[in-house]
C-alpha cells in the first residue's frame, strides 16, 4: 500500500466517525431537558414570543428535518444562530478557537519539552533519587486538579510575586491574521507583543500541561528502560559510541514512537478539556465557550463546538499516525 493510499484510507475513516459524532451530539443536545427558546428569551417572554423563536430556529420541525437542515448549513459554513451570543456560531468559533489552539499547543509543547527529558533522565537514573523525585512529581501532576493548580500558580506568580499576568491574553497584536497572538505578533515582527502574549500564556499553559507532562514522562521512562536493555544499545555501547548518542539518537527514537500516540490523544483531550483552566484565567477560548453554551442549552453552539473539536481530534490523530509511520516505516504498509 502506497503512502497516498494509506492517507486516503485514513481520511475516509474520519468521515463516518464525524458523521456519527454529529448525529450523536445533535440528538443529545435536543433531548437534554429544558426549552432553549424559553431560556434564551428569559422567563418573562410570552408564549407567543417563545413559539416565534422556536419557529425561527426550526425547533418545531421533526428531529430528522432539523438535523438535515443543520448539516446542509454546515457545508455552507453556517453553524446556526447562537442563542447566547445572538450571532452565527461560525463567527463565535472563529473568534474563540485560535485562543484555545494557542493555549493547548503551548501546553503540549511544555509537556513534551519537559516530559521527554525528565522521562529519559528518570530511565537513565533508574531507582536513584532523580527517578524517585520524578515519580513523585508525575504522581502529583496526574493527581492534582488542574483548576486548583491554576489558582495556586495564579496566587503565587501573579498575586504574591507579581511577575506574570493574572488573566486574559493581553492586548491583541495590531494585525490579526490567525487569531493566535504568538504567531500574529511574529508575522508582524512585533517582538514586544510576542513577549506580552508569551507572558500571558505561561501560567495557563503550564497548568494545562501538567497532566500530559506527567503521562509523557512516565511513558518515556518505561519505554526507555525497555529500549536500553535491547541488543542494539549494547552493540552501540560496545562500539564505544558516546552515551549521549546512544540515548538520544538510538534509544529515544524508538522509545518515542509509542509516546507519540499519547501526545496525539492528549492534544485532542486538552482541546476539549481546557475549560477549567480557561475559566480560572479568563481565557477566551472554545472550551469555555462550549461549556457555557451547554449550561445555557445553546443548541447550535454545543453541536458546533463538538464538531469542531471532533474534527481537530481526528486531524491531530491523523497527523500522529503519519508521524508514527515516519518513525516506524512498517506501519503504513502493514495497516
Amino acid at each position, binding site marked *: 500500500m502506497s503512502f497516498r493510499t494509506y492517507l486516503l484510507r485514513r481520511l475516509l475513516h474520519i468521515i463516518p466517525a464525524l458523521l456519527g459524532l454529529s448525529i450523536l451530539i445533535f440528538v443529545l443536545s435536543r433531548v*437534554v*431537558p*429544558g*426549552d*432553549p427558546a*424559553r*431560556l434564551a*428569551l*428569559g*422567563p*418573562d*417572554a*410570552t*408564549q407567543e*414570543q417563545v413559539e*416565534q423563536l422556536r419557529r*425561527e430556529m426550526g425547533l418545531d420541525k421533526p428531529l430528522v428535518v432539523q438535523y438535515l437542515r443543520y448539516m446542509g448549513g454546515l457545508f455552507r459554513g453556517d453553524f446556526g444562530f447562537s442563542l*447566547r*451570543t*445572538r*450571532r452565527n456560531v461560525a463567527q463565535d468559533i472563529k*473568534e*474563540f478557537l485560535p485562543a484555545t489552539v494557542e493555549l493547548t499547543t503551548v501546553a503540549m509543547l511544555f509537556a513534551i519539552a519537559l516530559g521527554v527529558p525528565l522521562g529519559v533522565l528518570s530511565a537513565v537514573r533508574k531507582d536513584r533519587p532523580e527517578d524517585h523525585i520524578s515519580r513523585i512529581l508525575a504522581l502529583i501532576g496526574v493527581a492534582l486538579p488542574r*483548576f486548583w493548580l491554576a*489558582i495556586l500558580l*495564579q*496566587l503565587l506568580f*501573579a*498575586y504574591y510575586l*507579581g511577575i506574570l499576568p*493574572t*488573566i*486574559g*491574553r493581553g492586548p491583541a497584536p495590531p494585525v490579526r491574521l490567525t487569531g493566535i497572538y504568538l504567531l500574529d505578533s511574529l508575522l508582524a515582527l512585533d517582538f514586544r507583543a510576542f513577549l506580552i502574549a508569551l507572558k500571558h500564556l505561561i501560567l495557563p499553559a503550564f497548568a494545562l500541561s501538567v497532566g500530559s507532562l506527567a503521562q509523557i514522562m512516565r511513558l518515556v521512562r518505561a519505554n526507555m528502560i525497555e529500549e536500553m536493555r535491547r541488543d542494539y544499545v549494547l552493540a552501540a555501547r560496545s562500539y564505544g559510541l558516546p552515551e549521549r548518542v546512544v540515548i538520544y539518537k538510538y534509544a529515544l527514537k524508538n522509545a518515542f514512537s509509542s509516546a507519540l500516540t499519547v501526545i496525539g490523544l492528549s492534544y485532542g483531550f486538552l482541546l476539549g478539556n481546557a475549560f477549567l483552566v480557561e*475559566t*480560572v*484565567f*479568563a481565557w*477566551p477560548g472554545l472550551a*469555555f*465557550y462550549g461549556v*457555557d453554551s451547554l*449550561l445555557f*442549552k445553546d443548541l447550535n453552539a454545543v453541536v458546533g463546538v463538538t464538531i469542531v473539536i471532533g474534527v481537530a481530534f481526528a486531524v491531530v490523530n491523523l497527523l500522529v499516525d503519519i508521524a508514527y509511520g515516519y518513525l516506524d516505516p512498517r506501519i503504513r504498509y502493514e495497516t
Partner: protein
Amino acid sequence: MKRFTGLLLMLVGVLAFPWGAFSQAPVTFTYIEQQIITASDPAAAVDESSLIAAINLYDPLLYPNVEKGSMEPRPHVAESWTVSPDGKVYTFKLRRGIRFHSGRELTAEDVVFSMERALRMKKGFSWVWTPVLEPGRIKALDKYTVRFELKEAYAPFLGSLLLFFILDKDLVMRNIRPGPYGEFGDYGSAFLERADAGSGPYRMERFDRATEMVMTRFENYWRGWKPNQISRVSFKTVTEEATVKTLIKSGQADMVNQWLSVQGFQELKQVPGIVVKEDPSVQLFHLQMNTKKPPLDNVKVRQAISYAFDYDTAIQKIFLGATRARGPVPVRVPGWNPKVPVYTRNVATAKRLVAESGVPPERLSIEYAYVVTLPLERQIGLLLKANLEEIGFKVEIRGEPWARIVELATKPETTPHITAIFDTLKYPHVDSHTYGMYHPSCWGTFRCMSFYENPKVTQVLEAARRAVKPEEQMRLYQLAQELIVRDAPSIYVANPLHRIAFRDYVKGYRYVGLLGFDVAFYDFTIAR
C-alpha cells in the same frame, strides 16, 4: 534685541513648563463581571452585565432617583411629562441639546424609533410594553415632544421607562443589514455588536464578547464632567470566583460584581483597602408551593408549612444575614405593605393546622426542588425537611439544572410541590411581585410555580393595573399582598442582601435596587 530675547525666553519657558501636570489625569477603572455581556444592543438587554453596558452607553427616557436612594423615576432625557385623566396618554417633553455620540441631537423621532424598534424586535424588556403599546401608538408631536397612547391605563408604565434606552435613529438605519424585520432588516443588531448608537456618558471603544468591553468617556455628554470622574472603563468578564478575588485584592480590579458567594464577600471584608457594601436587595427568596398539587391544594396544609419553617435559622445560619421577607414584595420596594401578615415558626400551630386540614398522614408526602448549582438552596431544603418531618411530612429533596426547573414550571402536573426560587424585581414597580407572580396570566413560568388562583385577588390586581391615581394603585396592590399572604402560596423566606466589593478610593456608589443602575460609572469618582 533684549526685548526680543526676553520674549523668546518667555516663550521657551511657557512651552517647556509641565502644563500636563495641572490638567486632569485620565482616570481608568476596571470593573469585573462574572457573566458575559450577552447583548450590546440595549433593546435586547435583560441580564445585569448587558444592562450595565446599556446604562453607560445609552440614556434611558427616565432615570431612577439615585440621589434620593430611590427607584422612583425622575426626569432624565424627558425633562417633564403629563398623564391624561384616563391614564392612557403620556406626553413627554424632551431635554434640548442632548447629543448622540455621532454628534447629532436627540429628538422625539429617535424616541419613537427606539420604542417601535423594541416592540417589533420583541426582545429584552419589550414584554413589559407589548400589553399596552404597539407601533403607531407612539408619536412625535414636535421635535421635543413625544406622546405614548396606551391601549388602557397601565400602572407600571412610567417606571418601566427606566429600562427604555434611546438609540440614534439615523446611525442605526444607515447600518441595517438583511434580517427578520422586513423593511428594517436586522434593525442594526449586527452593527450594535461592534459600535454603539447612544448618547450616554461613555462610548464603546472595543467589545470582545467573552472578555472585555472598553468604554471611553463622551466629552460632550449633556450632564457635563467633573474632576476625578472616570474617563476610561475596562469592563472585564471573569467567571472564576477565586480569580475575581485575586484581581480585586491585588488592585488589578477596582470593583467586582454582586455574584460572588457570601463566603467570598466575607473574605474580602477582611482585606484592608476593600469595601464590601451591603444593602437590602429587591430580591425575594421564597419556596413556591404548587397550589394545584395535593396535599398543597389545601390552604391549611400550606399555612401549616409556613408556620413550621425555621426562618431565623435560614437567615442567620444559611444566608449569613438577610432581611426577613414579609410577603411577596421585597421590603424596600415602594408599595410594599408593612401590614402584611407574617408567619413565624410555631410548631404547635403547624400541627393543629395539619390536623384541621383533614389530610391523612400517609398523604403528607412532598418533593422539594432546587437549582442544583446553588448549595444554599440545598441547605434550605435540608432545613425544610427537618422542620416538616417534625409535623409529620415526608420530604424528598431533588436538585435540578435551571433549564429543567424552567421546563417543569410550564405545567402544574410537572411542577414539584415546593420549589426554591430567587426572584428579582423585573421592573421598578410593585406590580412585578404581585401581578407578575399571582395573576393567572403568568402561569407556566418559573415566577408562578404556585399556580395561585383566587378570583378576588385576580380582580384586585387587574383593578390596580388599571387604576389611574397612584394612591389608588398602591391601595389595591397592598390589599392584594394581604390576600395573597393569607392563602400562603409560598414560604416567604428572605430578601437577601445585595453585596458588592470595591476599592476604598471609589466614591459615589449607590444601590437603588434596580439591576445594573448601581454600576453607572458616571456616578463614581476616584479619590486615590
